């Protein structure tokens, strides 16, 4: 990783610290700055309220010319998060072809938080969950809350 990229990651971390998002905590290891560990609380207005989610943001060597990779380490019932051991989230600005080098990590964190509040079923990775969300919202809410209790407490 180039010094420019390292400099940028450091600066972005400082920015996230100066302007913290509510319910988001970043564990930053200076020895391994390309892997951020995020602890995000389920937003209060969402079905995930009360859950604590562990995420990872990995910066590729080509950062900022390739997007960071976001994965949920805590299981979550969400149409935009893959329901497997990877827990990957890849949509919107996180897509390699849509990523813009000037984008910042803080906007990635905003995106994740907003998706917890309002999932995007039209750009889903888990089609059955998306279908659930669109057609049977009550059932979706119930399962999501159930998963919060089961995995995210």
């Amino acid at each position, binding site marked *: 990783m180039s010094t420019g990229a390292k400099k940028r990651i450091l600066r972005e971390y400082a920015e996230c610290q100066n302007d913290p998002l509510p319910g988001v905590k970043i564990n930053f290891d200076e020895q391994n700055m390309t892997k951020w560990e995020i602890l995000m609380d389920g937003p209060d207005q969402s079905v995930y309220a009360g859950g604590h989610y562990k995420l990872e943001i990995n910066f590729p060597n080509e950062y900022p010319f390739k997007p960071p990779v976001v994965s949920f380490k805590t299981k979550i019932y969400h149409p935009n998060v893959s329901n497997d051991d990877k827990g990957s989230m890849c949509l919107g600005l996180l897509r*390699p072809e849509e990523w813009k080098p000037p984008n910042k990590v803080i906007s990635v964190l905003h995106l994740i938080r907003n998706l917890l509040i309002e999932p995007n079923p039209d750009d889903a990775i888990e089609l059955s969950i998306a279908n659930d969300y669109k057609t049977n919202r009550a059932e979706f809410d119930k399962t999501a809350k159930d998963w919060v209790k089961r995995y995210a407490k």
Partner: protein
Amino acid sequence: MAHDDELAQMQRLSNDYVPEDTGPLVGERQSTTELTAEYANGDPIYRTKTAALPRKYAFYRRCRGDGHCGWRAIAFSYFETLIRVADVGKLDVEQVRLKSMQNLLNAAGHSDDIVGDFAEETFGLMQELAILMTTPNSDPCEHLLRNFNDYSRSMAIVTHFKLLASAWIQAHPDDYLPFVLDYPDLKSYCEENFERAVCEIDHVGVAALSEAVVKPAGFALEVLYLDRSPGDEINHTYRAEPLAQEGFPITNPPTLRLLYRPGHYDVLYRAEDFPVVIPPQAPIQVALVGQTGRYDPGAIAAPIHDYSDLLLSIPGAKMWEAQPTYDFNLNPSPPPQVVPVSSYAPVPTPAPPPAEPIHDFVPPPHAPQVNSHPAPRHHSIQLEQPVALPVHPPPPMSLERGLPMTIERTEPFRPSAYTLEPGFGANQMHALPFQTSIFRNSHYNTAHFLNPDFQPEEWSPGAEYATSNRGRHKSASQ
């Protein structure tokens, strides 16, 4: 139905096709004859066009087809042209100018701190080049190439240029809005087509970049298309001319050239873009000059002299001087030591004649060819099929070079050198009253009554003997 399936399958393959993403981000400069070779077995239109290419555009540089080739090609040749104009002050001016465009970037919503990262690399490279250009024995071009092959630096500069183009477009909505269909506004168009990490340059991007970066620097930008459109040559499809401050076009501006093949951009050069590089190439030029100087211009070697001049005018040959490391020699085998195959009883040759550069397309600088002087028939044999023989040490030329000529002259009845090679021993030829029937019957003939210097033909024994010389010549050769 099967047809539809096939089409769908092909469409799918074509959609999934990812162009080869290997090789350097920006390659070494190479001869366009390689393109000719690349398409030699291809489509006839490509074949014709690439065959004509080296005549006008001697070199090109491959850019990696990773979706940034167009942006990178323009950025690279912008820097390279800055080096080529060899004006350190210009680099400073450009640095200040690009820095002043930060306002434009801010207006388009790009904050200093993020764009600064990318711009820093552009300015850093400019400063390094400026230092190298004032340092003797340094190679700014090499530095540029190395830096453009450093992924993060190259991408930072490309991103900076992309953002500049995007900001430029958003600052000039009237000029660009008409070209932007299918998008609600310029901003979303720019975000999608310019700012994304992976987006190939489109024609609006080329135009914007040339307006924002290339033209204000006093450079022109030319895009030449190599595609299947009918024609014998690649066609100009885009040219941006810089304007001086008074609004007049600048004459002969330094020009950035791109070679466009559908979906891909490379950098293209004319041979004269690199005049500076030739002088240091001592070995080859010295050899050529030395050879031309070695011959007595008035003597039989006159055509040889012409040949070597001709060689210099072949773009390929020039390029060879400029870039001795490239093996562009059309004849890939080692410089042959050519000895003609005798088609008749060997002529007693007094000594190995000196080297002559005529017969080989590109003369090897130091290995002389053993060449048959007396019989022009040998020439044709050599051209068609050089026969390689063991290498002999070069003959001591200074001592021997006169020899073959004098021998030629002392044997006037030796067959063909005079008759078959144009200009060979031209002086003697003029002395002969050489007449065609057309000339004889025209008024240019002084024996014709319409000639102003009319002089009726008279029988003279001297003339009779002179003409009979020709007859003797013939009979001797049979």
